[in-house]
């Protein structure tokens, strides 16, 4: 497809586990393929241990893979990435309590990235910081705050601002809202949806929460012990799940009208 921004083709990852006579190998990803189009939010759903975070790490280059190919904007991504390659794909991690450096203020942690990548003259950095904060709907007064003084939702917004600071076109959100309260969770989901519109971002949204995926994503991939078992547009996945595991996942989600249903 012409507007495809990212594709993973046939990616496999094997981990060595145990030592001595207990040594064995675990297939974390088994010939996994998925693709993301420009401006699209694609969901990746699975349980713990299904390989969804491994895939995220492979995509941003934090994890080596055995075989397969990653394609960004029509060009294969080399195994050894340049700074420029790394800039294109950014990631938001699950736990904003451990993904931010506790000793750095918001400003410092954004400066750190801008300096490492050397994409902005020093005098423009502060303006860029302010711009990023307004993008993630945080007040400028937080520029000098450190993570301990911020709530979970604010921290996650800072993490998103950092990810956006390098103008990526493709964002990976690995369980980005799982550690947050429902009320805060809703506002972060809305923020991601807004960013997709305003920045034409493509997002790979990794989650175990099917209800959120249903609201946010255009297409969904279901991953089960290292295999993508189903990949379809969100509506058809929920209305007409093809794979037994997808059906099991969907039926396991508690529903608010359960009691109404039981009573009738």
């Amino acid at each position, binding site marked *: 497809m012409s507007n495809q921004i990212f594709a993973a083709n046939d990616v496999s990852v094997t981990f060595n586990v145990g030592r001595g006579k207990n040594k064995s190998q675990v297939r974390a990803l088994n010939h996994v393929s998925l693709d993301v189009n420009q401006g699209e939010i694609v969901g990746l759903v699975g349980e713990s241990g299904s390989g969804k975070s491994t895939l995220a790490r492979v995509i941003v280059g934090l994890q080596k893979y055995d075989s397969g190919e990653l394609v960004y904007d029509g060009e294969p991504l080399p195994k050894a990435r340049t700074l420029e390659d790394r800039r294109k794909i950014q990631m938001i991690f699950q736990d904003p309590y451990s993904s931010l450096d506790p000793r750095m203020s918001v400003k410092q942690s954004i400066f750190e990235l801008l300096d490492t990548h050397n994409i902005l003259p020093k005098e423009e950095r502060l303006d860029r910081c302010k711009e990023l904060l307004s993008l993630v709907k945080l007040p400028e007064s937080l520029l000098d705050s450190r993570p301990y003084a911020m709530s979970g939702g604010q921290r996650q917004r800072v993490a998103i601002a950092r990810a956006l600071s390098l103008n990526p076109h493709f964002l990976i959100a690995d369980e980005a809202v799982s550690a947050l309260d429902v009320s805060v969770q809703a506002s972060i*989901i809305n923020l991601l949806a807004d960013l997709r519109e305003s920045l034409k971002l493509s997002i790979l949204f990794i989650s175990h929460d099917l209800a959120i995926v249903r609201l946010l994503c255009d297409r969904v991939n279901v991953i089960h012990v290292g295999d993508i078992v189903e990949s379809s547009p969100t509506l058809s996945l929920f209305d007409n799940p093809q794979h037994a595991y997808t059906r099991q996942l969907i039926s396991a989600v508690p529903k*608010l009208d359960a009691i109404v249903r039981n009573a009738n």
Partner: protein
Amino acid sequence: MTAPANILEFENLQIVARIAGRDYIAIDNVSFNVAQGHARGLVGESGSGKSLTLRAIMGLLPSNVRVTSGSIKFQGIDLLADKGKYRKSVLGTGISMVFQEPSVALNPVMKIGKQITDSLVERSDLNRRQARERAIDLMDQVGIRDPEKRVDDFPFQLSGGMKQRVMIAAAIACGPELILCDEPTTALDVTIQAQIIDLFKKLRSELKVSLLYVTHDIGVVAELCDAISVMYSGRIVEQVDDINKVFSNPQHPYTKALLSAIPRIDGPIQRLKGLEKTAPSLTQRSQELAPPMTQIEPGWEIAPFEFSDLNQMWSSSSHE
């Protein structure tokens, strides 16, 4: 059908926390019942006071936190009176608790069979072999496969869901009538969560246990509970004995806001309404006492809307 008696009754509970030499009201005016054989869900965001309320029953409050007024009656007798002597006599046999994080709550260096029957052995004259048999029975009851083999495993050999089953087996070992649940499925995957919810349903129908179930997940409460109390900022804002009423027709603005912030798998696909502001932290909260609840109809109460912390919060969220 006559209304069943209440197994647990909270009356005007107030809990105060001492932070940096000052007292702050952490929980105020909490009154609700758990009817015999019923399940009540206690729902709220982090910091709403739901876990403190639960811990007050067990006497597991942190050292800087104390109950300053009110009573918690189990089968009509106050657990807080008499320096907790009565409480000690009913823990395990009358009331038991299942915690959130099974991998933290279980002892990593003790075989699970022994952990399950520890409290039972303490209270009876079972010998080692009988206790082991009983542990196997209990493990079977909570759906652990091959209990004869598993009984000598250590916690690290089990998955998260299996550990939570072990915790539940330990909780029902002495045949309690009330189980207190502190977010028991929050750390688990959805499919495992569904299994644990089914297990609780089974325990309710087979053992006739009552549940007080603390969670931030309203979906779980909808699946499992009959009654619900919604907490915000240390106060109950809405509670109803028939849970359906809250979902079909929530009365309090906070309940409405909370319900609309939840992504639903069965509702229309639409933008969520976030609560832009979260509850103020304990030290920034208004220290005024909670006003009395208003009854809408028997078994359905809401807090007055004017209560200041609340006012501040939903007036800022309503324009989202």
